[in-house]
């Protein structure tokens, strides 16, 4: 289980996507699961104008929080410190891992149990822990399954969505000592429960993510259904929470409107089983809870997004996953094809800041710009606009005086530049454009039978006999 998880470079995206769409099994898994989640979400929002009001307000809260981000982070730090929490800051994944490993070493850790945390995936913590000779065990059922099979999550809310229960049954029978083959979901969950309860009891450290960090009270909020998050944050002697710097809100009262949209957008639940609000470690006289509580605030490219007023809206995200559930591309290829921690539309707009455009420039192109993501986003991130923007940044060097994005211009191509320059030259010269139309229609028989990606599954495009321009001109003359 300590084998490093594979890091899949984004450059192989097209290959993986092609393999995924050819996998009928995977296609139907994702289609069915996404249809289910779409229907569940829709049932939660019967009143469209009410939903629009909620989205507008949630967007307002997120924009307000981001506008005050540095102040709120300082306020959060102050409050948490007063509450007895140690606050750490990390600019890079390496720094974050080092902070966590140092804490773990101080406590002679053998085992860390983990609640669901996408940021810990983002920094490849499990890998770093393994390198440091310590075990990091995922305890969210889906994450546990995925880790047991040496994989990464394929969905940010439903990590093992790509697996059937039969596959999981075989996996458990093979990898869990003493587990007999069963494809009863209840029994499979029972097996996971038994294994993990043992681990909760013995782990020296519990790690969790954070859904909202409240500055005014110094409160870390966690959303979950299973109870593993509560186990990780309560049973071990040390709790380390890790979060991106963008998750902070000013006031406790800012939480309910966001929470209501988060759980409804994610899984179509009005609320999750547990909403866990943690404001400090065990106090004298209290009989359980961690004795030490740490918060690691991670940048990892977020300040780059923050530095640009349009791209800043990326940080409004509350990680509900609705954009991927509704994305026709994600539905066809699943999460693994993206090769980044965050798949789908949100992954395409957030990954370039974390990994740089050189490694991720293909991700923003993997969208038909249909707009479904932007339409369902509970905090109204204009995802299609951001995809377009990132397509541009990937293909153009920064203008003089502008600070380049990480990997800016990495996808620049002389040929593509020439094509678009030629395109613009043609379409800004009406007479030339009409002449082109005249020629294309006259020589329509010469249309190439192979047209790049188009003819892979389509017959070639062929110009009409006469352009609309010509027909309208002829009408005018007659």
């Amino acid at each position: 289980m300590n084998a490093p998880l594979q890091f899949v470079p984004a450059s192989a995206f097209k290959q993986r996507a092609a393999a995924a769409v050819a996998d009928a099994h995977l296609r139907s898994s994702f289609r069915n699961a996404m249809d289910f989640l779409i229907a569940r979400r829709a049932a939660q929002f019967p009143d469209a104008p009410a939903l629009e009001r909620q989205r507008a307000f949630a967007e307002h809260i997120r924009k307000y929080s981001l506008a005050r981000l540095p102040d709120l982070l300082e306020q959060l730090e102050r409050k948490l410190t007063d509450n007895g929490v140690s606050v750490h800051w990390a600019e890079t994944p390496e720094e974050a891992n080092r902070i966590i490993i140092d804490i773990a070493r101080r406590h002679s850790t053998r085992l860390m149990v983990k609640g669901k945390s996408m940021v810990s995936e983002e920094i490849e913590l499990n890998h770093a822990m393994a390198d440091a000779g310590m075990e990091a065990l995922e305890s969210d059922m889906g994450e546990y399954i995925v880790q047991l099979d040496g994989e990464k999550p394929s969905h940010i809310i439903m990590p093992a969505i790509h697996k059937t229960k039969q596959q999981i049954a075989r996996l458990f029978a093979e990898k869990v000592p003493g587990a007999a083959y069963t494809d009863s979901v209840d029994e499979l969950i029972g097996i996971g429960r038994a294994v993990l309860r043992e681990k909760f009891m013995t782990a020296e450290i519990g790690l969790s993510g954070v859904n909202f960090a409240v500055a005014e009270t110094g409160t870390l909020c966690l959303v979950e259904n299973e109870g593993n998050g509560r186990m990780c944050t309560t049973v071990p002697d040390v709790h380390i929470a890790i979060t991106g710097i963008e998750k902070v809100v000013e006031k406790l009262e800012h939480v309910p409107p966001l929470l209501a949209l988060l759980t409804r957008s994610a899984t179509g639940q009005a609320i999750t089983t547990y909403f866990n609000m943690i404001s400090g470690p065990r106090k004298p006289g209290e009989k359980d809870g961690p004795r030490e509580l740490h918060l690691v605030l991670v940048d990892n490219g977020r300040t780059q997004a923050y530095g640009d007023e349009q791209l800043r809206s990326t940080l409004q995200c509350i990680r509900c996953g609705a954009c991927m559930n509704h994305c026709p591309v994600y539905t066809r290829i699943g999460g693994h094809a993206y090769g980044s921690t965050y798949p789908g539309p949100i992954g395409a707009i957030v990954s370039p800041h974390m990994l740089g455009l050189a490694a991720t420039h293909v991700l923003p192109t993997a969208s038909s710009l249909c707009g479904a993501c932007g339409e369902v986003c509970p905090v109204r991130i204009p995802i299609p606009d951001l995809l377009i923007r990132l397509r541009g940044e990937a293909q153009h060097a920064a203008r003089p005086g502008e600070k380049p994005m990480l990997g800016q211009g990495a996808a620049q191509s002389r040929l593509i530049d020439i094509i678009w320059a030629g395109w613009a030259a043609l379409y800004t010269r009406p007479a030339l454009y009409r002449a082109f139309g005249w020629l294309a229609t006259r020589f329509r028989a010469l249309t190439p039978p192979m047209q790049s990606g188009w003819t892979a599954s389509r017959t070639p495009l062929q110009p009409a006999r006469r352009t609309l321009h010509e027909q309208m001109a002829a009408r005018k003359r007659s």
Partner: protein
Amino acid sequence: MDEAGRRHYPEKPARVYLFGTCLIDLFCPEAGMDAVRLLEREGIEVHFPAAQTCCGQPAHSSGFPEQTRAVALAQLRLFPEAWPVIVPSGSCAGMMRHHYPRIFADDPRLLSEASALAERVFEFTEFLLHVARVRLTDRGAPARVALHTSCAARREMGTHVHARTLLGQLPRVEVAMHTHESECCGFGGTFSLKHPAISSAMAGDKVEALKQTGAQTFLSADCGCMLNLNHTLQKRGDPLQGQHLATFLWQRTGAEGEQR
């Protein structure tokens, strides 16, 4: 976003401009001609500025803002009179109505021109329904059709609502729903060239859904989607073919004796 809910529609005008779009110009000019015929039948004079080329959307969605701006600028002043500008394509209409003002946001003069133009841009079915306020007479045999509206048309222009309402005026036309009706057909402009595997999978699912309705034809107000789906069907040797809504409406409601 349904435009009808938030847009103030003017009285039926005597004259309009037609912005034909680059795809219709080269690949589906009949759709453009049928749109003209339908408008003229309503007593509206159609002006077609000869200098028009493309709205700029291909460069816009590919991340080439400079080229987008140049091409958009070349269209901006082609419609000097205060007449409506009719666009028989939802995504091009969306580009001119919603994106032009943002493209020129940094130049107050161009911005005011772009905003003024945006106010006059109507998607074709939207115009027929809400401005021309047509009353269609069904002259065809009973037919079962499916409807595919492009994503931009649906989300930026509310075309799915307008098209359905227009078809509702034809008593012998039954509009069949297909599964995942609001889902993209996989065209996405350059997306279909850049990611053929994913695009094909999406197009394949869409044609299967359309076929399952048992419809004789399917209709779209966007030439891009129509080309994507028709050429996919042709490659599969499938007889089902889609039509532009303008063509379908013209043929059903007034084309006798004028068939090409």
